[in-house]
């Protein structure tokens, strides 16, 4: 009898080359246009926030892995970098770096590691960090500076949505022009202002099939219908869907936050419900709520339903009779 040392394993014996870290690095690459845009608009403010948020996230992740006696090589998956990067992108550029540290620690520790790390968290970690800062330091989190490209000399400044919230009636020149919204020459969070740069990165993720196209589509369509309805009824008081799509954190939220794989549903029907839920809740907050912006809370709110949505939206199996 021949003596062999064959490899024994159960099928399949082929594996796709994609891996979790490759997915994470693709997400990081996709965020680069928006990161570059933020350097252009906010200069050295951007640099500080990025370094502090990413650095703190990675260190916090490492600390927790060590405490939980998990292999440190898990760090290489890149997910902590994404959390830090995304957090920085949704913070006001003028935020002090100490607060950014707190935000990043909360994002990784409370947002992710207490649930068991990557794959087990219920809420989008970066948004958990941001929500904490928003609640604990509301003034710092709503103080805005104009982009350097806008030659205005004011200490504080309103975002397009903030501006909208406090306008009694709308006139054509009281609103931020759509062109500025599209390119990002406006006040707002560090990485959320340039719709153009974000969409470029989103196109890459869609092309690579890394994000589920149903999520941004569901959000955009439902938000457009909702805001469009009010706009058609009363254009003096409400603004157009295009404004709502380009302003605030909608683009970064719809393409980069709501699409977080871990915290969005896995079933097709669940994904649609989740996306439409976010898309309806955002304008509800923006038009009738106390805050000018509602992207963060809408996503976090719908995150809570994800396990339930997965449980009750089982896909129809091939050959299964539809219930009549």
């Amino acid at each position, binding site marked *: 009898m021949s003596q062999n040392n064959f490899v024994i*394993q159960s099928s*399949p*014996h082929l594996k*796709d080359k994609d891996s979790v870290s490759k*997915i994470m690095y693709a997400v990081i690459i996709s965020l680069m246009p928006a990161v570059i845009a933020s350097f252009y608009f906010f200069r050295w403010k951007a640099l500080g926030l990025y370094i502090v948020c990413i650095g703190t996230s990675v260190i916090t992740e490492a600390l927790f892995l060590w405490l939980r006696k998990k292999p440190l090589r898990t760090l290489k998956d890149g997910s902590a970098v994404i959390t830090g990067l995304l957090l920085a992108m949704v913070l006001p550029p003028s935020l002090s770096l100490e607060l950014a540290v707190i935000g990043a620690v909360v994002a990784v520790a409370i947002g992710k590691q207490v649930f068991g790390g990557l794959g087990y968290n219920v809420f989008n970690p970066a948004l958990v960090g941001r929500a904490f800062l928003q609640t604990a330091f509301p003034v710092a989190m709503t103080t805005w500076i104009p982009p350097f490209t806008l030659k205005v000399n004011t200490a504080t400044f309103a975002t397009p949505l903030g501006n909208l919230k406090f306008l009694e009636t709308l006139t054509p020149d009281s609103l931020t022009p759509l062109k500025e919204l599209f390119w990002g020459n406006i006040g707002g969070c560090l990485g959320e202002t340039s719709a153009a740069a974000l969409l470029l990165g989103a196109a890459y993720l869609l092309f690579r099939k890394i994000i589920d196209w149903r999520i941004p589509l569901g959000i955009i369509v439902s938000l457009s219908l909702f805001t469009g309805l009010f706009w058609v009824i009363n254009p003096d008081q409400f603004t157009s869907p295009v404004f709502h799509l380009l302003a605030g954190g909608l683009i970064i939220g719809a393409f980069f936050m709501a699409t977080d794989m871990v915290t969005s549903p*896995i079933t097709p029907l669940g994904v649609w419900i989740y996306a439409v839920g976010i898309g309806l809740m955002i304008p509800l907050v923006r038009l009738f709520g106390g805050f000018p912006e509602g992207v963060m809370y809408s996503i976090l709110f719908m995150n809570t339903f994800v396990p339930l949505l997965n449980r009750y939206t089982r896909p129809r199996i091939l050959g299964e009779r539809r219930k009549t």
Partner: protein
Amino acid sequence: MNTKTFPHGIHPPEYKEETAEKKLQHLSPPDKVFIPLSQHFGRPADPLVKKGDPVDLGQKIGKAPALFSAAVHSSVSGKVLKVGSTHHPSGKPLLAITIKNDGEDRLSSEVKEVEDPFSLSPDRIRERVKEAGIVGLGGAAFPTAVKLAPPKDKPIDTILINGCECEPVLTSDYRMMMEYSDDILQGAELIRKATGAEKIIVGIEDNKKKALSLFQEKTKGHPSTSVALLKTKYPQGAEKNLIYALLRREVPRGGLPFDVGVVVQNVGTTKVVYDGVKHGVPLYQRSLTVAGSGIGDPQNLMVRLGTPFQKVIDFCGGLKEDGPIVVMGGPMMGISQWTLDVPVIKGTSGILAWKLDSPPEETACIRCGRCISHCPMRLAPTQIKKYVEFEHLSEAEEWGVLDCVECGCCQYICPSKIPLVHWMRLGKAKVSNLKRKKKSE
């Protein structure tokens, strides 16, 4: 011609070019063959010979004790050395008949040709298929006679001849199509007669254009047979997916192709149906692909059943290096082997060997949902895995663990490298055990 396919599935690298144009070669029978009594889905055959008995080529040496079983035949002429347990590609030793080959290939008197097989009644066709011990050669080895006997209340209208060969690397079905197209079409006609179907559709994937044009040419103007082009995708050759791709019919959960008026036969099976019905030649040899980067000289071979893998691989230039993975079947669904002292059986569609990279580390599920968007049965593997892991077996069943065909798409595509198919198998075993227990209570 419009290209058809099914939703979901994957596009693994094909690796077929190495052997696709290599004609089937007959491997001369070895000195000794080891013929297992279990080479098919269902009960093992009962041995009809004992130690010392002389046997002829094609002689029945094991008879089917039940409907879901198949007869086995000697693949050489010679003398029975042993009726006992030997290694089996399934991994566990099973009862087999060892025969010493006298090298004469003396044909058994049981092998009887008929003049015109098309004049036979459906019952006679089925009987000859059953006597020939024919089972599905695509890999599942389901007894063909059972497939040709649809229940009275389930009329069959269409026969699908499966020329997909969707498993990467394998090309022996393609060779059968190129070299035995007439036999395949005649066999298909016999199957149509046996089941009372109206039409025959031969499904061929678009990575086998030569076979497609050959069959188009051969069936031109044929009243009942047509050829359909399929977009290359794995696992198109899986029965339920092929039926959906070609006819847009869904086989009900837990049901059979009968339920939607269809019988599916692999091209290789169709050829041996012709051999069995027309010439009375039982299934004692089969075509297979020997390939992979670990094989010295990859080939397509016609091999006598019971030939040890070692002999087959030696003929193909041996193994290139130490410590490869050796697989019976295709790389997606094949069974890895621990020894080459196992015989070629009816389900051996290929023998592959290659050097495996060190296995990628399993990481936590990031819930990307790729396993769901690629599952050809439209299941949610990651969710089922979780139910199985935490013993929520009724949920696992509700979510369709028993519908899993173990094609491996989920595990192939999983970026976290989770052994999902393994979890499915575990889940199936646990759920079936539970059901059995409940039944007996």
